[in-house]
């Protein structure tokens, strides 16, 4: 055997050994690497960690369940509240129109009272308002200034008509919301407002309209003597 052959066989052996060593080392490193941040921890530590994780998850889940119940309570109460709010808003709209705090619109009539001789009195206008109320008027205003509500006061001072303190001058224009036909019938009914005004030398014109706007407002002051009852 030559020196060359001997050298080769020796190199071969070394190569094989190195390969095995490399394989073993690589296998070891791979296994070690898998552990990652848990490399230094014993199996018992890991099991304890797993247990405490499970316990923490359970606690958190319980909290979540509780909060979900709270939320569903909130949701159903907010649904109830929304229904109540809707009802309250409808009521507010109706009361606002009745009390005169909201501008209103709807079908109705515009009644124009001319009074060339200045003979039409506050009482005549009040009578006209009563006729309109009797015919189902739901909102009334005079001369786009005076909103007529339950407590509206009609006063005559020195020949001037004052409605809730508003000085009104003829022609008196009454806007009334309601059934336009019924309202106009009531005004021109024999013995009604039209007759009375013509007797006083004035004239009444009624115009039915699909939309009449009652835009003036009556401020609501808190009552001084009337208190809500406990019912």
């Amino acid at each position, binding site marked *: 055997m030559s020196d060359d052959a001997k050298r080769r066989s020796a190199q071969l052996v070394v190569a094989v050994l190195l390969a*095995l060593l490399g394989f073993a080392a690589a296998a070891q490193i791979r296994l070690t690497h898998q552990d990652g941040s848990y490399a230094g921890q014993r199996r018992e530590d*890991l099991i304890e960690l797993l247990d405490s*994780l499970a316990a923490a998850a359970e606690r958190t889940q319980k909290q979540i369940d509780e909060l979900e119940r709270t939320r569903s309570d909130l949701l159903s109460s907010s649904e109830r509240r929304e229904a109540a709010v809707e009802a309250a808003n409808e009521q507010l709209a109706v009361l606002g129109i009745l009390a005169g705090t909201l501008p209103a619109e709807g079908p109705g009539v515009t009644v124009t009272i001319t009074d060339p001789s200045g003979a039409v009195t506050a009482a005549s206008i009040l*009578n006209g308002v009563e006729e309109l*109320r009797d015919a189902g008027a739901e909102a009334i205003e005079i001369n786009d200034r005076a909103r007529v509500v339950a407590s*509206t006061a009609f006063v005559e001072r020195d020949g001037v008509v004052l409605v809730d303190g508003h000085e009104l001058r003829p022609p008196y224009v009454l806007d009334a919301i*309601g059934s336009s036909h019924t309202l106009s019938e009531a005004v021109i009914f024999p013995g009604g407002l039209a007759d009375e005004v013509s007797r006083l030398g004035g004239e009444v014109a009624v115009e039915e309209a699909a939309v009449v706007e009652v835009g003036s407002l009556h401020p609501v002051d808190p009552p001084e003597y009337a208190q809500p009852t406990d019912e």
Partner: protein
Amino acid sequence: MTNQAGGGRPPPPPPSQSYAGLLSELMTNTLDADYEVVASRRSAATGASPQGESGGDPRSGWSNRAGIVAAVTAFGVLVGVSAVKTAQDQPQATAERAQLIEQIEAGQARLDDLHGDLSALQADIGRRQQEQAGEASAASRRTDDLQHLAMSAGTAAVTGPGMVLNLDNARHAVPGAGGLILDSDVQALVNGLWVAGAEAIAIDGHRLTALTSIRFAGQAITVDYRSLTPPYVVEAIGNPDTLPSRLLETQGGQLWLGLRANYGITFETQTESTITLAGDAYNNLLWARPVGSR
């Protein structure tokens, strides 16, 4: 150690009697002598020694080398097998460990998810509670508004001091003679009460609202389309100290003083410390709606 003088001779055999000598012989001569013996024996046997001292018996060289290779290979195989075994054993030993770690990581991911859910839920509930608190205060404002409006509109019951008026036709009154109470008389009286500062009025228990009409039908007054029979009772809530006197200053009050004086119509007033008026039950409006609601 002796040193004998002599020319051309190989170095004398070292003294073999001392330990130091043996050691140094081992160090210096080691196998040389043996090799010489073997080599001479070999050359004697073959008659030629072409390979010289470094040659030697090929078989004995091979067996030596084979032994070394075998030993090294065995060592390599041992290391390799041990490495492979370790590589195979370790997954088994750490299969459980890896599984544990996997479970831990899954558990942590789940906990993170749960914490995310929890904080989202808390934020959501906080937002809703805040909303509802806002709604509640809006609702209480709305309730206050509703109460004021309903009192003003005449749909809520109210109580307070005020005055009570008793009205009746004149005794033996006949139509046209002036002894009958007309709707315009009652309208004027009610108007006078509003002028005098009344806050709520009812006629025979019927609360007056913006919709209430006071009319005359047949021989009787109608309030809110309901026919009333005399005597009529008008109740008004307001300042009991000023309401009666202010009423008498109004045109309505003056009218009624005249009716009483001239036609014998009953017109009695008295103050009350507590009057309770029911609210008018109302239905939804049929025609009027808030501007811009449709």
